């Protein structure tokens, strides 16, 4: 343990991503979506790359599959050096094939995690600032 409490990396929202962070802060997981062709876009864009339609953030169910995962044993990242091991997964959301979000897995031991496992999102305050993140719990 370090003498000074370390905080995890903090996101720096930009014009395209600010609504994502505003939504989680307000208790909702929302993802950018084209209002014309209805394609989901992560990371978000002002305009759809396919049809150039306007986009907006819409709620997602927060359910999906573990597309892949790692178990971190190395104290490489501030805010996590005293929380080893922890599991980070790449989640594929149910809304669309290939729509992915990275997130920590909670409520499961690393050895019980499998690719394809069903998970659901829950929101958690990120230490050190004003941000809320979506973590994922096996169902």
């Amino acid at each position, binding site marked *: 343990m370090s003498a000074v409490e*370390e*905080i*995890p*990396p*903090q*996101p*720096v*929202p*930009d014009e395209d*991503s600010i609504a*994502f962070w505003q939504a989680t802060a307000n208790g909702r997981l929302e993802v950018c979506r084209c209002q014309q062709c209805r394609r989901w876009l*992560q*990371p978000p864009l002002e305009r759809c790359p396919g049809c150039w339609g306007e986009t907006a953030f819409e709620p997602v169910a927060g359910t999906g599959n573990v*597309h*892949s*995962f*790692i*178990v*971190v*044993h*190395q*104290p*490489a*990242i*501030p*805010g*996590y050096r005293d*929380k080893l*091991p*922890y599991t*980070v997964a*790449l989640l594929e959301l149910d809304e669309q094939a*290939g729509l*992915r*979000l*990275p*997130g*920590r897995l909670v409520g499961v031991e*690393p050895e019980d995690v499998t*690719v*394809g496992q069903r998970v659901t999102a829950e929101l958690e305050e*990120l230490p*050190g600032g004003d*941000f809320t*993140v979506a*973590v994922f719990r096996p169902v």
Partner: protein
Amino acid sequence: MGSALGGAAVVGIGRTAFTRKSGRSTLAMTVESVREAVADAGLSVGDVDGIINFNTGDSVSSQRVAHAIGNDDIGWAVDIQGGGNVVAQVVSTAAAAIVTGQCDVAVVFRTLGSGTRYGRIDTTVQVGGDVQYGAPHGYLVPPQWFAMWARRHQHVYGSKPEDLGAVAVTQRTHAVANPHAIARTPMTIDDYMSSRMVFDPFRVPDCCYEVDGSVALVLTSEERARDLPHPPIHILGQGDSFGYGGNVDEFDDLTCMYSRDAARRLWSKTGLKAQDIDVALMYDCFTYTVMATFEDFGFCGKGEVGDFFREGRATYGGDVVVNPHGGLLSEGYLHGLNHHYEAVLQLRGGAGPRQVPDAKLALVTAGAGPYGSSLVYGSEVA
């Protein structure tokens, strides 16, 4: 046939020692490697009129280096922002500048100092861009991203931890014969399997060995190369791919890499195929990078890398020698420009005890994940 890039050739190579902590500036190391490469080419620094490098904001600019080698009459100076992904692209860009008459003698360099270590973050960071979503979860450094990809490959193709280990062991065995390599302690598969887990499925030996150092190449026109001391090493063609905005979470298939698309371009432009290659300098920031790209370039089928390496087909006496210098995993992480140095040395026949017999064609790949570049060098014009 052959690419117009064949109108340029590599005629000089230079490098510093690779060390864990040099105590030297990136400028000082660059001057050493560039002066060595120019001398190796049989030229003087006054002959240089073009210079290019790549960096991530962690090294010195091309024009600063030109000034420090004592040449203030540079007509073409380029700084490319990028990492391992752009290495082959930087070399082919220098070749293109020569064949289009923008310069006559071009230096290519890459330098890394102790201020750059990509494997860990020491201070609290604020991150924007594509990594703002994963970073708050403690998911921010490249070995984590490619461990994620490796797990997916294990799921889809049934590749095993021992398969990644076969890559690490083969390359370490090569490094033992390379006095310049930083990691020369022999390693067995048992050593690998009992090594420390860092980002499961990656262990310590799955990750490259970060060092301080500098590598430089000198290129000139085919015509001028004929009068120089070393046989010119020709660029037979290049193939790059830059997809998905470089986003490691979004790439459509984590069991492949940029190489899926770069290989298609490279082989179609050169008329070559993997089985023609004598030496493969595979970009190897991680063992999994070798696995995915080796498959994508067509040396073997998906999921077959472990057997290919275990059966000795990736070393001397096999189908192709992969990273005879030990690669980034064991020679040291000079961001892939050391692969070009080794390719040129091998095709000159100057690699000493680790010389690949009768090496005529070398593939050099650069990058991992959604974007990267590649080229083929030949000891003869195609």
